[in-house]
């Protein structure tokens, strides 16, 4: 299977490239990788990265160098719902460790692990810029803040109830 963006997304790629002066399409790499990750199953396989390289006329290594540098790009498959719990100082002061422990209690996964049904992946991340609303996690596009056990319960319930479609 050779992969390709839909016509719509290709148009979006063109719009992204147009944000930068002519000949600077390498600048589009970060946004296009975001788009690719969203479109091709939540992670960047080598195949996807090579495709993006072709699209932006870059050497594949230029894409690998970038994709491996930034923490938001997943280089391995992840569950349908990625729960990224912030663990840095300010969140820790407000009980982020308890949140990670509670997710383990509920789902049986530790940071870096995915549930066997492929529904949830748990990750710990560093400060997401929501320190005043701690503890918090990122779920897909959104932040869940002022977390409590009840809020985790609700989140898990709503994710589990969702039909099989993209989470964003």
């Amino acid at each position, binding site marked *: 299977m050779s992969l390709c963006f839909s016509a719509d997304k290709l148009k979006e790629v063109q719009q992204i490239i147009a*944000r*930068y*002066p002519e000949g*600077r399409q*390498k*600048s*589009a*790499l*970060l*946004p296009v*990788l*975001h788009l690719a990750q969203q479109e091709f199953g939540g992670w960047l396989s080598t195949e996807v990265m090579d495709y993006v390289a072709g699209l*932006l006329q870059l050497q594949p290594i*230029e894409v690998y*160098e*970038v994709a491996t*540098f*930034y*923490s*938001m*790009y997943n280089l391995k498959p992840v569950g349908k719902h990625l729960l990224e719990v912030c*663990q*840095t*100082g*300010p969140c*820790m*002061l*407000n009980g982020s460790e308890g949140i990670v422990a509670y997710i383990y209690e509920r789902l049986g996964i530790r940071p870096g692990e995915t549930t066997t049904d492929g529904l949830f992946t748990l990750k710990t*991340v*560093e*400060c*997401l*810029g*929501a*320190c*005043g*609303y*701690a503890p918090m996690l*990122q779920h897909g*596009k*959104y932040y869940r803040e002022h977390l409590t056990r009840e809020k985790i319960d609700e989140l898990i319930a709503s994710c589990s109830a969702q039909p099989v479609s993209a989470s964003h």
Partner: protein
Amino acid sequence: MGRKLLLEKAHVAGITTYEVYRREGGYRSVEKALKSMSPDQVTEEVKKSGLRGRGGAGFPTGMKWGFLAKPEGVPRYLVVNADESEPGTFKDRYLMEFIPHLLLEGMITSSYALGSNRSYIYIRGEYVWVAEILEKAIDEARANGWLGKNILGSGFDCDIYVHRGAGAYICGEETALLESLEGKRGNPRIKPPFPAVKGLWGCPTVVNNVETVAAVVPIINDGGEEYAKIGIGKSTGTKLISACGNINKPGVYEIDMTISVEEFIYSDEYCGGIPAGKKLKACIPGGSSVPILPANLLLKTAKGETRMMTYESLADGGFASGSMMGSGGFIVLDDSQCVVRHTYSLARFYRHESCGQCSPCREGTGWMEKILWNIETGKGKLSDIDLLWDIQRKIEGNTICPLGDAAAWPVAAAIRHFRDEFEWHVLHPDEAQQRNYGLMHYADPIHVPQPVMA
């Protein structure tokens, strides 16, 4: 009630939309600048205002603009730093989320002053929805003639684009940010050349924090001198402080720099005191990189004076007994918190965020994290504390970019002020797993040495 220049209108219903923002007096500064001022006059007002960069270093903004090289026929760029990844800092997000047009207005006026026809907002990748809010606001501004070609018939063209990062604290460092904007790894550049001469795509560039650029709006509206009247000394204008940790009312506050630290923590207008009857133990007043202070040194300087929420007062005493305003990320620790564990968590952060280019930072951050983990989990030795001190000293000042310093300072300050807490961890490894050290003497009045008469 302090004066508010940035967030005054942030809670007007519908202020995120162009109509309401404009109705509330928005975009006046662009009108004023483009119709009645030359670019240099705008820069002049910013110089007069005494505005200092709100991104962390506190460098005078007008002076920075003055350094911008202006070679003929070469484009210049304004890049707004919305990477906001310093632990404890979440003020720019607040501003962009609640009053996005203020940033755009400041950007158009600033772009005019700098001669940037294409300006970028580099926003941290995780703020997905904030980027969407900004993009919507940009579309509105363009539809209403504030962006695009020949704005207000002035002959000035300007467009603004949002560029999302992808998860890297180091991209807040201005040259790493530019690399990232060019589609590369966020490795800070070796300076010189400075961005003012060779920045984005090799062209002269100014990188400014979100709040800095937003502050240009009231400066142009009311005049630089008016702005400079607010605050104390060289701390002019208002400052956004994002307060978090163990306080009753975490959140983003706009302060005019005339209040004391004590008032900021305990008054109901701001943090509202420490919850659950606990006591103030320590505080990192300007984002995770600046030195942590014990309660006594936080509220009073070593000279026994009241510590104020200003650049100068927070830094009073240097690193021996003071801290820094930094990015305004105000982190409060109550007496049930463990300074060793908190320091460990920050060390882990810096190890995780080091770009890995230069050896002291790449190797030193990981080493400090491991030692701190040992101490925290009861496997430490007394000599480890001195070793940590030595490592941070060998990182500081010897790296390519200030992340090395930013990683060294929290460790240095924690050892400087909380050495006995570290020693207690080492000497009571089992007990340290059961309970925390507590407040001990950290809030005791400090002894102010009186001048000795000869």
